[in-house]
C-alpha cells in the first residue's frame, strides 16, 4: 500500500479536544508543507501562531455558510471534524447543539466548498452500545444502538446516521468516521480514564466483560492514516487482544469495589446526573456487557496496525499515573 498523500490545506474543528489538537501538532511537526486551518472559538496555547484560527461558532444557525465561505477562501481540501466533547457534561442541550447540529453544519459546508475532497470524523465505538446480545466482535455494519441513557452517544449515533446519508448523496467526497474503543495512554484524559485512575475502581458485582483499549498514539496515527489514504466508511479502532476487566485491574494493582448494579445505579443516580447529565448506566453498562470491536476493516482498508496491544495501552496509562503520583 502506498503511503498516500496528506491533504495540503487541512481544516480542523475542535482544536481543544485531544484528537483535534494533537493531530494538528503532530502534522505541523512532521509535515512542513501542510497548512492547518483551525475552525472554532479558541486555540490551545501550544498551537498559537502555528495555525490560522477562524472564529466560528458551530452552534450558530448560519454556521454552515460561514464555514463554507472559509473553506472556499482558504482553498482547504480536507476537514477533520473533532468537535465532540471528550466527556459528557450536564449541558445536554449544548452538546446536542454542538455535536449533532454542529456536525450537520460541518457536513453541509464540506459539500458546498468546491475544493473539498475528504471529511474525517472522530466518532467512537461506544455508538454500538454495550448490550447482552452483542456478538463477541462488533463489525462496522452492526446496528448502532447507542445507550439510550447516554445523551452524547445517542447524538453521536444519530450523527453517524446522517453522515452516511450525506456520504451517499456526495459521492465526490471521501467520508470516513473513526470509531475508537476506549483510549488510554500517558496524557489522554476523559471520564473513562478518570474512573480507572483511583486505587480502587468501582465495578459491577458478578460481571467481568472483555475490554479493549487503544493507545493514544495509535489513535493519532490512525487519524493521520485516514487523512493520507482513502478509506471511505466507518472504521473500528482498538488495540489487539481483549482482556477481562478483572485482569486489567489486577495488572494495574488496583483494588476493585464490586457493587450490585441495582444498588450502584440508585446511589450514583443524582451524582451522575449532576456531573454527566446521564443516568449511571450510560457509563457503567460499558463495564457490564460486551462491546468488543472487530478491527479488520481498519487493517485492510487503512493499513492500520496498532503498535500497542490492549494490555500495553492499559499499562502505559497505569505506569504514567503511578509516576505522576510520586512526582
Amino acid at each position: 500500500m502506498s503511503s498516500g498523500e496528506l491533504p495540503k490545506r487541512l481544516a480542523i474543528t475542535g482544536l481543544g479536544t485531544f484528537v483535534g489538537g494533537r493531530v494538528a501538532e503532530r502534522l505541523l511537526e512532521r509535515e512542513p508543507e501542510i497548512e492547518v486551518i483551525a475552525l472554532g472559538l479558541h486555540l490551545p496555547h501550544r498551537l498559537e501562531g502555528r495555525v490560522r484560527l477562524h472564529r466560528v461558532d458551530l452552534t450558530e444557525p448560519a454556521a454552515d455558510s460561514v464555514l463554507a465561505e472559509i473553506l472556499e477562501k482558504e482553498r482547504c481540501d480536507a476537514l477533520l471534524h473533532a468537535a465532540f466533547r471528550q466527556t459528557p457534561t450536564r449541558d445536554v442541550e449544548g452538546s446536542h447543539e454542538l455535536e449533532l447540529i454542529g456536525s450537520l453544519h460541518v457536513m453541509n459546508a464540506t459539500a458546498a466548498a468546491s475544493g473539498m475532497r475528504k471529511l474525517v470524523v472522530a466518532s467512537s465505538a461506544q455508538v454500538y452500545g454495550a448490550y447482552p446480545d452483542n456478538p463477541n466482535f462488533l463489525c462496522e455494519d452492526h446496528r448502532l444502538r447507542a445507550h439510550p441513557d447516554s445523551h452524547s452517544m445517542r447524538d453521536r449515533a444519530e450523527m453517524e446516521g446522517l453522515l452516511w446519508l450525506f456520504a451517499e448523496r456526495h459521492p465526490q467526497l471521501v467520508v470516513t468516521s473513526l470509531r475508537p474503543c476506549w483510549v488510554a495512554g500517558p496524557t489522554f484524559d476523559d471520564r473513562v480514564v478518570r474512573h480507572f485512575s483511583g486505587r480502587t475502581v468501582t465495578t459491577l458485582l458478578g460481571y467481568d466483560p472483555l475490554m479493549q483499549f487503544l493507545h493514544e498514539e495509535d489513535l493519532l496515527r490512525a487519524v493521520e492514516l485516514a487523512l493520507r489514504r482513502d478509506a471511505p466508511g466507518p472504521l473500528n479502532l482498538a488495540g489487539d487482544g481483549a482482556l477481562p476487566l478483572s485482569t486489567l485491574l489486577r495488572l494495574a494493582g488496583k483494588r476493585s469495589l464490586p457493587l450490585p448494579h441495582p444498588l450502584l445505579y440508585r446511589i450514583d443516580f443524582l451524582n451522575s446526573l449532576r456531573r454527566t447529565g446521564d443516568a449511571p448506566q450510560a457509563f457503567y453498562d460499558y463495564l457490564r456487557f460486551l462491546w468488543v470491536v472487530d478491527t479488520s476493516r481498519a487493517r485492510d482498508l487503512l493499513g492500520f496496525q496498532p503498535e500497542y496491544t490492549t494490555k500495553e495501552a492499559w499499562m502505559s496509562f497505569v505506569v504514567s499515573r503511578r509516576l505522576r503520583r510520586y512526582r
Partner: protein
Amino acid sequence: MLELYEGLRQRISGGERAGISYEIDQFGLDPEYLERAGGLLDFLYDRWWRVRAVGVSDIPEDEPVLFVANRSGVLPYDGLMIAHAVAREHPTHRRPRFLIADWLATLPFWQPLLTRIGGVRACQENAERLLASGEWVVAFPEGQKGALKRYHDRYRLQRFGRGGFVSLAVRRRAVVVPVAVVGGEEVHPVLYLPPLAPHLLGVPLTITPTFPLLGPLGLIPLPSQWRIRFGEPIRFDDVASERADDPLYVNRTRERVRNTIQDLLDSEVRKRRSVWTD
C-alpha cells in the same frame, strides 16, 4: 478494617485468585483458569456423572467440526461435558467451544466463569467467527426451549431453531457431528416453570424437586448417569454454497439432523437400565 474489606472482596470477586492468566484468547477462554478448573471438570466427568462417551473415534481430526446436540438440564453442564469428553478422549485433545444462551451469557457470576472455561454466547456471528478461526463448536439448536422443557418432555427434541447451524456448516464447509446427551435431563428435572418469573426476575426460575426447596443446596445437580453418544459425521463438501441461503434445503437438512439425534437419543435411553446407574 482494611483487612476485613480485602477478605470480603476476595470472597466476593475472587479477584486475587492465583491462576488467572494474563493471556486470554479472543473469546475470553483463560487456559490457566481452565487448567485449575480441570480437577473439578474431571470430578464431574468421572465421579459425579460417570460420563460414558461413545463414538469419539468417529470425529474427524483435521476438519472444522460443528457438534450439534440436544439441550437439557437448565445450566450448561451438557456443553461443558461434551467439550470435556472431546478434549479428553479424542486423539487431538482439542477442546471445542460451547455456545450458551443469552441469559446465561450475561448472568451475574456465571458469565465470567463460563467465558473463562470456553463458553461463548450463541449467535450466528460468534459461531461463524469461531469456525473461521479454526475452533470446534458445540451448538444447541433447540436453545432455551430445550434447556427449560418440563421433565415429562425429557429426551423429546424441541424445534431446532431456524436451521442456522445448517447454513453455517454449508458456508464454512464444516462437518456436523450429531451428539446425543443422555442423563442431562435428570440433573435439574424441571417440574414447573412459573410463567411470570422471567419478567419479574429477568431470569427463568425453574421449580425442581430440590430447588428452591433446599435453597442454594438445590443448585447442586443430581448425580445421574450420563452417556454422550457422538453420531456419524455429516459432510457438506459436495453441497453448493448457495444452498446455505435456500430455506427449503436448510429446513430439510435441519429436520434430517434432528431426526438423527432423536434416533440416537431413543436408542441410548433404551440402553440404560436406570437413571442413576449404567
